[in-house]
C-alpha cells in the first residue's frame, strides 16, 4: 500500500526551463510535506517543506504547491540548472498513533536530469 506516489520515474528538462515534479498521496492524515534531493552515493538532503495549512511555499528557485482536495503536491524549480540533476523524493508526515511522534513516508523518487 503505497501512500505517497511519484508516478514519474524520470524527467528531463533543458537548462533555464521550469522543472515540475509531482507527488500524490492517499492518507488524509498527512499534515506536513517535504521534498528531499539525493545525489548518487550521498544521503538525501532536505529541500523545502509545506504545512497542510498552506497551499504554497517558496524558497528561491524552489516552490512547493499543495492541493489538499486533490491530495497532490508539486515542486517547481525555476530556472532549472544542471546542478539540480538528482533524484527528488516527496515525503509526507502524519502524527503516529495519536502521540507526539511523527513518521515520514517517502515516495519512490523522480530522477531529474537538467541538460545544458
Amino acid at each position, binding site marked *: 500500500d503505497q501512500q505517497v506516489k511519484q508516478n514519474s520515474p524520470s524527467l528531463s528538462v533543458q537548462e533555464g526551463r521550469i522543472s515540475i515534479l509531482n507527488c500524490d498521496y492517499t492518507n488524509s492524515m498527512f499534515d506536513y510535506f517535504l521534498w528531499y534531493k539525493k545525489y548518487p552515493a*550521498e544521503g538525501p538532503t532536505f529541500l523545502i517543506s509545506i504545512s497542510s495549512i498552506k497551499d504554497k511555499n517558496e524558497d528561491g528557485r524552489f516552490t512547493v504547491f499543495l492541493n489538499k482536495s486533490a491530495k497532490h503536491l508539486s515542486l517547481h524549480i525555476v530556472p532549472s540548472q544542471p546542478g539540480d540533476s538528482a533524484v527528488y523524493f516527496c515525503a509526507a508526515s502524519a502524527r503516529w498513533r495519536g502521540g507526539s*511522534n511523527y513518521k515520514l513516508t517517502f*515516495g519512490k523518487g523522480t530522477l531529474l536530469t537538467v541538460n545544458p
Partner: protein
Amino acid sequence: EAGVAQSPRYKIIEKRQSVAFWCNPISGHATLYWYQQILGQGPKLLIQFQNNGVVDDSQLPKDRFSAERLKGVDSTLKIQPAKLEDSAVYLCASSRGLAPSYEQYFGPGTRLTVT
C-alpha cells in the same frame, strides 16, 4: 557542524551471516532514525529513537534486526541472520526533535549486498 557519520560505507556478506552498522548523529540531536532504502524505492523507516529510548520500531523485522542507542548518542543496527532481501542502503538520520518541522539530516548510508 559535522554531519551524520556512518560506517562502513559498503559491506558484502553471504546470507545467514551477521552484520552491524554504526551511526554517529549530529551533536545535540536528540532524535535518531534508521531507514532502509531498497533499489528503486524511497527510504523506509525501520526504527526511531528519542535520546536512548525507542519511539517507533513498528517496521523493524525484530526476528532478525536489532538496534540500540546507548547513552543517547551513537547507534548500531544489526542484522542476524541476513537474507538476500536485506540488500539495500541503510541510512541513518538525526534531527533536533520529533516534529516534522525539525529537519532530518541524513548520513551517506551503508550499502549492503547479501549474496
